[in-house]
């Protein structure tokens, strides 16, 4: 009884988001009687390990690969190699560039995720949005694409003119106090927030790349007693993140659904192995949109959202 083998390749295996993704894939694979092998880079941006992982999956005789690419265009030749070898390759969370380099993509629209929190923040401030002082807490100096998409989405949603939409930090709007990098963790979030507060202590809107960075930023604000008069927005919607929305740490977060991405992906590989059929994208889009929802307990007009109770039910589902 040759079990169907599927591979899951994530950016890292230390970010809770990918841990969830792996959980979802493992559960689904077990349910369908498949074997799942998971791989990950050592750090975010560790592209070479992902290439090696694809090769390993080919050598292993896997039927398909689920991939969240660290470098969306560099990975394409390796993906092509896998497809040539008869594997189905499905991009999760992060679309490849070009998007059709993968057989299918199950992802959140990261720009949209950013846009939602931007719109929410602007609407929450109302008139005051014109005088906002915004801190942008980004991922890392290498400006990875997810980070850029969320950052630029947020600014667009907030109503700020973008410079080059492929990079952050080139906007001229005086409402932006500054950009700093967080490495996507609490430590970096706190330090970056402190740096920007030293630059301008009157910051009242904080965009964060993800919820750990948001938690760190909150600690920095708390230490100067401003935790209650600053809006923090973030992306991910992980269970701890939604809890933080409930606790008032984060004002709103855009929730994505990694577990869903993973289980849909595993199913698709099974289908490919059994019937030779590839999945179809969401009508009208180039990818299968697993959806994004704004989670907040302070809904605003004009921006659709769910509350934290629902968010908790769905968190990373």
């Amino acid at each position: 009884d040759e079990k169907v083998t599927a591979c899951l390749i994530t950016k890292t295996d230390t970010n809770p988001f990918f841990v969830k993704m792996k959980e979802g894939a493992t559960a689904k694979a077990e349910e369908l009687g498949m074997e799942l092998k998971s791989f990950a880079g050592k750090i975010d941006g560790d592209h070479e390990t992902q290439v090696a992982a694809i090769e390993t999956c080919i050598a292993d005789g896997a039927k398909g690969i689920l991939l969240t690419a660290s470098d969306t265009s560099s990975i394409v030749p390796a993906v092509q190699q896998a497809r040539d070898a008869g594997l189905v390759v499905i991009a999760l969370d992060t679309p490849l560039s070009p998007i059709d380099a993968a057989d299918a993509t199950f992802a959140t629209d990261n720009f949209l995720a950013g846009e939602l929190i931007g719109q929410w923040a602007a609407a929450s401030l109302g008139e005051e949005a014109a005088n906002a002082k915004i801190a942008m807490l980004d991922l890392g100096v290498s400006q990875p694409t997810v980070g850029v998409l969320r950052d630029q989405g947020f600014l667009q949603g907030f109503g700020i003119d973008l410079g080059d939409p492929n990079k952050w930090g080139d906007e001229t709007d005086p409402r932006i106090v500054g950009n700093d990098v967080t490495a996507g963790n609490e430590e970096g979030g706190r330090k970056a927030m402190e740096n920007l507060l030293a630059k301008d202590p009157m910051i009242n809107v904080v965009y964060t790349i993800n919820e750990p960075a948001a938690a760190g930023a909150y600690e920095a604000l708390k230490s100067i007693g401003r935790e209650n008069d600053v809006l923090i927005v973030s992306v991910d919607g992980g269970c701890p993140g939604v809890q933080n929305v409930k606790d008032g740490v984060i004002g709103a977060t855009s929730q994505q659904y990694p577990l869903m991405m993973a289980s849909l992906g595993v199913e698709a590989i099974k289908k490919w192995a059994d019937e030779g059929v590839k999945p179809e994208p969401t009508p009208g889009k180039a990818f299968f949109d697993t959806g994004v929802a704004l989670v907040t307990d302070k809904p605003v007009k004009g921006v659709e959202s769910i509350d934290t109770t629902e968010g908790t039910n769905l968190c990373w589902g």
Partner: protein
Amino acid sequence: MSTPQSYEAAVAGSPDKVAEFDHGPQSFIQKFQHALHVTPSLVPLIVLVMSIVIFGLLLGSKFFSPFAMTLILQQVGIVGIVACAQSLVILTAGIDLSVGAIMVLSSVVMGQFTFRYGVPPVMGVAFGLLCGLLCGYINGWLVAKMKLPPFIVTLGMWQIVLASNFLYSANETIRSQEIAEKAAFLQFFGEKFKVGGAVFTYGVIFMIALVLILAYVLRHTAWGRHVYAVGDDKEAAELSGVNTDKVLISVYMLSGLICAFAGWALIGRIGSVSPTSGQLANIESITAVVIGGISLFGGRGSVLGTFFGALIVGVFTLGLRLLGADAQWTYLLIGVLIIAAVAVDQWIRKVSV
């Protein structure tokens, strides 16, 4: 017994003075160089004061305020503590690449023991400290007893401890709010108090106390002298009666323990317990040590220097950010700073006293 050979008797009547040479006129530069030579932590102190003054002039009260100054202290708090551990190891002519990993694993143990196994927070902290001590012991044992190079031992342990950290924690973060509610003791080092505009945390106080205690111990106790002796020339220390194995193991254990304290302080600083923290602690702590003037060859330098070194990096980072330089330029300048610091150090070392 025969008598001395005749020609040797001619020595009698030779002057008893040690040879003294004509020094020639000494320039101010030479005298200054000499002063720096005898007090190694003076260089980083001067650089620190100068950089504070320069950024103060450029940025005014935004930078030169009790708030900003104490903010720098808070920002270098964790690195400062870890750099103390690193200093000890480097003084013995070693290097510890596992400091960051030990710090994180210890903080994760504190959190998980408290929340997963439900032990009282104080006990959780105790287990975390024990974990750091144990990691340090393994490092020390491999270095002292197996005689393996510290670079390799701690390179291996780095990977082992970090992987254990991820495996054990299952990458789960314990949230700040939860800790505050159920185990505030874990966040002890994050508590703050104000003195005018200055904001201090217990973590900062701990770092300063640690620096002072280590400076005292290294200078004024036999163990401290032995640490220097081992770093200076291990074999010589051994032959002249120092139990070098014991000294080395105790240094690595103390280093592990200090890293565990850094892990505790980390919980205070970021509020939560997060297994992905501390990835840059190695490089940052070595940078502080090097800028602080401790020789990588061991046996020379002081922990005060390390403290100043950590502050210099903190001042540059905040100062440059306030001036509007972006993160990449800051990294570039810190790179230049590292090389420049050691070049200056080398120049000072040239003096023979």
